[in-house]
């Protein structure tokens, strides 16, 4: 247990990269070994992740399971990792979803067939994603953050759809553009802090006393990096392309986890370290968030590609998350973290389903589908269930994040204008209606109606056991988190209170 408390996090983050290295040294003909390795090295971190829950004290504020070691002394960067109630759910989500992707990949691998490359990259990606959620040193955070880029670039560019090359380079350039500004922000913060430090926890003590002009400037620099990753309107244009062109597993990981890195960056770094700037920019962030909600919903109404529709819906859902964050209140931030997890579970699931539909119909054009509930009742049912969860039906996971984000904007942090945020609330409310509209319309067009003539007599296989195994945890979580939101809120609340205290809430 002692070992786990000190090195458990490190283990869960670096096991996948070990697996990637092992796969790299396995001859590519031995596909079974490669798949086994990918399964094992996503399962082991998950086991470690579950064991971590036993040593983690849920009722405590502040960081736990910390490791803090010397790393680059000459520039003052340390290997400092730890988790609290905000990062724990995201870490567990990462470990779970990647494992499910490994299960799914046992049978369904995108073309061109190359399990060695694909699975090694997936494991590399897992290290980057999980590491981002535990890093407590800005340089370390940056490394993990960037580690995600290359594997995702290859995943989209090699195994993606027809416009894969364009989507891949767009994703890469956009994110790099954001992250270099983020890095400049980190460095500026380092030199402004006295004593100079990259340590997030120390900066949370030092940062708030920085002059407000400096805070605003640094917040803006970092904000560009985080906002592109979220993505916030108007920085979202890389997302529909990347999500649509990426192979199924790539889309799932992008939607379920990568996007959360941006919102997590706001919660872990920008807001607690620069609370003054956070209050300054909150109305702007809120405005961009509601624009994203409405804009994404309108866009979704116009989409004919199922995957592109889900991709745009992500922009909207992340809008709710950002709206919750922008209120800077306990309820709002709680809603944001819940929304992040719920979106990860639900949209991850939707992308799995979209992938499976494409696998069967070889098209994702909604007008060409239709009547799926007749031909593939189980797949149709799952699509309906998940889509309804996505639109925020009470009792399912999507509900809490959205409704609490709207609720909290009725009464934002006292330093913020409640009038402004009430306007946001109304606009966001209209967004939820539109969201319900496009999702129900999508269900109607895909599931109901007549089966188009081209599918008559064609053999279409319904959900297979392996798919069910890969999806069951997500479906159960969708229901479970909807019925027992305390599963998340109990973990997050203490840390969120700690965060909002820094903001004077």
């Amino acid at each position, binding site marked *: 247990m002692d070992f786990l408390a000190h090195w458990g996090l490190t283990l869960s983050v670096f096991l996948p990269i070990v697996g990637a290295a092992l796969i790299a040294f396995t001859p590519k003909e031995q596909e079974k070994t490669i798949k086994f390795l990918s399964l094992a090295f996503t399962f082991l971190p998950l086991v470690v992740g579950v064991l971590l829950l036993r040593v983690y004290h849920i009722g405590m504020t502040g960081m736990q399971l910390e490791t803090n070691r010397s790393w680059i002394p000459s520039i003052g960067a340390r290997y400092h990792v730890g988790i609290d109630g905000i990062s724990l759910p995201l870490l567990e989500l990462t470990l779970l979803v990647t494992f499910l992707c490994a299960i799914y990949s046992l049978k369904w691998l995108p073309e061109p067939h190359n399990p060695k490359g694909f699975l090694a990259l997936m494991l590399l990606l897992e290290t980057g994603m999980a590491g981002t959620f535990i890093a407590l040193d800005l340089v370390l955070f940056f490394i993990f953050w960037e580690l995600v880029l290359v594997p995702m670039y290859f995943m989209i*560019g*090699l195994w993606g759809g027809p416009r894969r*090359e364009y989507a891949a380079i767009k994703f890469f350039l956009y994110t*790099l553009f954001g992250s270099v500004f983020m890095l400049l922000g980190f*460095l*500026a913060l380092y030199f402004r802090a006295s004593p100079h430090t990259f340590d997030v926890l120390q900066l949370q003590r030092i940062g708030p006393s920085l002059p407000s002009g400096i805070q605003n400037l640094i917040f803006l620099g970092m904000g560009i990096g985080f906002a592109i990753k979220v993505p916030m309107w108007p920085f979202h244009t890389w997302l529909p392309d990347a999500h649509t062109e990426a192979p199924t597993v790539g889309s799932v990981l992008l939607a379920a986890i990568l996007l959360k890195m941006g919102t997590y960056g706001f919660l872990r770094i920008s807001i607690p370290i620069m609370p003054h700037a956070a209050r300054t920019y909150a109305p702007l962030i809120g405005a961009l968030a509601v624009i994203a909600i409405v804009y994404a919903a309108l866009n979704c109404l116009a989409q004919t590609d199922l995957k592109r529709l889900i991709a745009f819906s992500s922009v909207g859902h992340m809008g709710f998350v950002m709206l919750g964050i922008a209120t800077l209140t306990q309820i709002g931030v709680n809603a944001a973290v819940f929304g992040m997890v719920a979106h990860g579970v639900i949209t991850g699931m939707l992308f799995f389903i979209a992938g499976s539909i494409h696998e069967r119909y070889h098209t994702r054009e909604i007008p060409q589908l239709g009547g799926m509930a007749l031909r593939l009742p189980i797949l149709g049912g799952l699509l309906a269930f998940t889509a309804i969860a996505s639109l925020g039906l009470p009792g399912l996971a999507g509900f809490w994040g959205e409704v609490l984000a709207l609720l909290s904007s009725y009464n934002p942090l006292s330093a913020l204008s409640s009038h402004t945020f009430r306007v946001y609330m109304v606009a966001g409310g209209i967004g939820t209606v539109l969201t319900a509209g496009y999702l129900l319309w999508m269900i109607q067009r895909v599931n109901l109606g007549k089966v188009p003539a081209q599918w008559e007599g064609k053999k279409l296989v319904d959900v297979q056991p392996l798919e069910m195994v890969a999806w069951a945890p997500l479906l159960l979580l969708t229901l479970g988190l909807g019925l027992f939101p305390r599963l998340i809120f109990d973990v997050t609340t203490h840390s969120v209170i700690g965060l909002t205290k820094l903001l004077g809430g």
Partner: protein
Amino acid sequence: MQIDYAAVAPELVLTGALCIVLVVDLVLPDNRKGLIMPVSLLGVAGTLLALLALAGDPTRTTLGGMFVVDSFAVTLKILFCVAALLTLAMSYDYLRKEGIHQGEFYFLLLCSLLGMLTIASSRDLLPIFVSLELVSVPAFVLAGLQKIDVKSNEAALKFFLFSILSTAVMLFGMSLIYGITGTTNLAEIAVRLAATPVLRSIAVLSVFFVVVGFGFKISAFPFQWWVPDTYEGSPVPVAAFLSVASKTAGFVGLLQIMFIAFHGLADVWRPFIAAVAILTMTFGNLVALTQRHIVRLLAYSSIGQAGYILLPLAVVNVNGGSVNHEAFAASIAYLLIYAFMEMGAFSVAVAYGREGGYFIDDYAGLGYRAPGLAVVMTVFLFSLAGIPPLAGWAAKLFIFRAVIDGHEYWLAVAMAVNTVIALFYYAKVVRRMFFEPAGDGPLGVKVPLLLQATIAVSTVMVLLVGILPDLAAHLARMSTLV
């Protein structure tokens, strides 16, 4: 005058090796000329040993204060020797295949290396100038070694003419400095410049002349025109040597002069250097976008990289202090890391060039035909682009850090934008290699053993320093002169 022979031991060893190479070349029959390579390799290895024996010693000064062996000198000399070793290993098969005069090649390479070693120890304008010429003159011939190739001739001629011109300008600048201060010793120049404010305008003029001269060596804008043609026309290992060792030698001279002799005038030259650095990186990166030949791409990329290395000079403080120390260390750290990623990329270009891969188009589908080669090329290119956790990222971090420490936020932003532009052309090559189907080219690329070794060494260094950047950062901080 007493000579401290221990201090000059590496140079003596190398000079000895030079003579042996020359003699061996005379006695060997034509079909056995390849043997000169191992002899040269041993010579450089011996030099390296002599250097390692000096590492960690207290500073030695000899030849009337002109020649100093301190940690700065030792670190950079080791870097030069390693770069030479990698170049030698890269050249062996290349020269045999291309039928290039091997005896002359190795001799000239070692001559150039000797100049590099002495420039790192020179704390006086005269030896700096002589060393710089010793670096360049053999390099002219190296560039033109493929006598029957028109491009090689063009390479040598362009290199020669540009170099002569810039050297003349630099020498004029140096003579002005001597005229004002009456000394050629760098530290003494700084003292006397501070004491004679009357002649400041002439001093500034001479600083500009000197910078112009070095601007050519380090391929800074607008003195970079020779670079792409020379690199393309030269034998590829020579291009690698020029882009790493020769460029580093230029930086070594420039850093010494600017930080020791001219830092008192930093207020005047800082904006000028800032502009040159930004223009250099922007020009290099923008033009690289349009390149189709792999060596030309690397040439323009190396111009871009020179801009990054130059940037810390734009924060030099007149009064010295920690900002100068950090800026100096950042440039040194970048040079240390740059050497390996650049050598690695050139090694791959040599390896694939053997199979006829000269153009970026030829790299299409390399990921399927020679996955190993394509993966290491990706490592080097992404390292040059500054993607963590590869070493090039750490190098850029040090530069950003120094520039922000000097409160030059806009320069950091300009460099950040450049980093993004640069990624585009590095990723372009990677895209060709992996995202395009294998063409009709043969499966597998045979890489000679020595070339494999250079690639392996470069890869290991790029990965190792990427994960533990302190290896470079610590060394660089130990090896500054301010």
